């Protein structure tokens, strides 16, 4: 019985939050990694692309809510998601036309493109604040919990409770669907194959008649869809605030680099590595150990490896270790 309690406490405070957070990071990191693989630069504007997509979803959700449309127990934002993706696609294609294409034609070095993307980041940053403001916005509705702590306790009679939020469930399901679709697209379709070919060897791809502008356009479209989905899921699960997306850029890049830049599988693994290490290393194990250990060995201290202040430091330590010993990342991406 005690072991069950330990397991439930661990799932409630570590495993479930980390899986949800990891899925959100993975979706974000996939976008970063795709841009890096095909356009060959680190896109710093990715966080703010997420914010822009999520902002569109918030606005459309409000519109739907005011028209009385709802999605039953699921959040209305899921209905708004496709429209938000279309809007974000338009925005990234526009920035590509106006900004990035110029530098691509110049064959600018990646470092120049990185700096250009920072400029784009600041503009998008301002655009989002200009439209919706810098404050917290709440747009989730529908059922809040798949199972709440109280229900779980009544159901099992355990002392510890377990809560699974609807948004956490949706995050994981949507992330799995997105990843499955993406891999099917990259491995099975003609366009996907041409994208991989272009990523592996640009010159060979050009020789075999692949149209680079088409590849670039498809990449942006996929990235916009991924970014918006990640942004909306994150906003639903936590709350929508423009500044938060800007800060999310760091763990997203850490995930992409740990996994191996340019490798989609690596981005997903990296997302979960970062999320789990952030949560487990700073978790105070006292509660779990109290259940799992015999009474005589009960810990009196918190059994916390690192204070939660150092949450972000954890991802960076992992990042440094990976870069030192395996510069291409866990899944053999391109070296940075």
């Amino acid at each position, binding site marked *: 019985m005690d072991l069950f309690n330990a397991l439930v406490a661990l799932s409630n*405070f570590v495993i479930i939050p980390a899986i949800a957070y990891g899925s959100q990071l993975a979706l974000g990191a996939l976008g970063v990694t795709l841009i890096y693989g095909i356009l060959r630069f680190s896109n710093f504007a990715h966080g703010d692309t997420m914010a822009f997509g999520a902002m569109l979803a918030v606005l459309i959700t409000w519109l739907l809510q005011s028209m009385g449309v709802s999605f039953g127990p699921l959040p209305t934002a899921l209905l708004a998601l496709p429209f938000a993706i279309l809007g974000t696609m338009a925005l990234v294609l526009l920035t590509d036309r106006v900004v990035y294409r110029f530098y691509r034609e110049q064959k600018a070095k990646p470092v120049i493109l990185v700096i250009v993307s920072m400029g784009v980041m600041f503009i998008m940053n301002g655009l989002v604040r200009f439209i919706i403001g810098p404050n917290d916005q709440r747009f989730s509705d529908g059922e809040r919990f798949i199972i709440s702590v109280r229900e779980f306790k009544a159901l099992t009679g355990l002392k510890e409770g377990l809560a699974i*939020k609807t948004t956490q469930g949706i995050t994981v399901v949507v992330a799995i669907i997105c990843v499955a679709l993406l891999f099917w697209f990259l491995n099975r379709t003609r366009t996907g194959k041409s994208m991989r070919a272009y990523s592996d060897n640009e010159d060979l791809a050009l020789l075999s008649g692949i149209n680079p502008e088409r590849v670039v356009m498809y990449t942006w479209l996929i990235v916009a869809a991924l970014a918006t989905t990640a942004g909306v899921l994150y906003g639903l699960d936590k709350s929508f605030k423009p500044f938060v997306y800007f800060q999310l850029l760091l763990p997203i890049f850490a995930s992409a680099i740990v996994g191996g830049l340019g490798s989609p599988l690596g981005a997903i693994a990296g997302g979960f590595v970062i999320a789990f290490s952030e949560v487990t290393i700073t978790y105070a194990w006292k*509660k779990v150990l109290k259940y799992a250990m015999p009474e005589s060995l009960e810990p009196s201290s918190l059994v916390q490896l690192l204070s939660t*202040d150092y949450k972000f430091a954890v991802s960076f330590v992992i990042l440094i270790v990976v870069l030192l010993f395996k510069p291409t990342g866990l899944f053999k991406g391109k070296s940075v």
Partner: protein
Amino acid sequence: MKKLLLASAAGALLAGAASAEEIKLGVILGFTGPIESLTPSMADGAELAMKEVSDSGKLLGGSTVASVRADSTCVDAAAASAAAERLITSEGVKGIMGADCSGVTGAILNNVAVANGVVMVSPSATSPGLSHANNEDNGLFFRTAPSDARQGVVMTEVLMEEGIKEVAVTYTNNDYGKGLADSFQAAFEAAGGSVTINAAHEDGKADYSAEVGALASAGGDRLVVAGYVDQGGSGIVRAAIDSGAFDTFHFPDGMISNKLQENFGDEIEGSTGQHPGTDSPGAAKFSELVGDSFDATSPFTPESYDAAALILLAMQAAGSSDPAAYKEKIMDVANAPGEQIFPGELGKALDILAGGGEIDYVGATAVELIGSGESAGNYRQIVIDGGKIATAKYR
């Protein structure tokens, strides 16, 4: 000719000593920077007191008071010190109503005010670091806002009365949060309670599952959230409720606003909190006095009125606008014994003081100076009842 000049100069001097002068007071507040939305009404509050005193014509035989504003920026200690230096050396102010934020207030006090011997009365600096137990300030610094150390004690009293002996504490990672959390922990443990964990959280993050995991593991009867309601504080509370880690919370001043009620409603039923506030009739009289000319309920605005009033009343009590003389009188006019003085009654107070009587300045915020000259503070204790913030009592 020479004699005539000397005589007339001496005459002028004599006349000057006996008759009215124009007294300048500095108003140093962060008109630009993080609290720029609060400072205009704070300055208006202080200037209202100066105008009231000037109009009465009773200060030091009919002296008038002029305000000179300067920008403390709230964050830039060098800019604030330069502004204060200018006020004292080139404008010749006799006292400073300010500064506002704790950091710049300390900088002005140590670099400028003590060196020049000018009195400062801050309406809003709450850092415990500004309490001068050993007279490092030469008795020049006062404040009409309570120190956060005081809030830690009040918070302990509230929790102890609720029968809560074990709490977890999380604070926003800055001077305010850390100061408050530490002073609370000290007070709570001294009163026999135990703090299971005292952990920081960063503002502006959206994910607080790691923080709440640690807090939940440490356990406690209640979670004390020394944060900001429109920043990380709400994120922590949200994550704690969702994961079932804590059902009730205790909120210091940074968390108490309508936003709290909007965000959580009856999900935090039974939670408690406190923030500076008073049921003294002074607050109502101040609002009445201000009318529509500015927002009398804006934070620290009544404190600003009281700060300026205290300086002027102390001058009257000392019979001089010299800071070295009137600094001794500030505690006397602020505290009992004497006749109670409310906002709008400064003229009456000047009369009593001129007649050699004693006053007990109550003002808009029920001023009671303790320790080295800081407000004892009045707190409104709240409880979440039926999803609404309700007043439990004042203490």
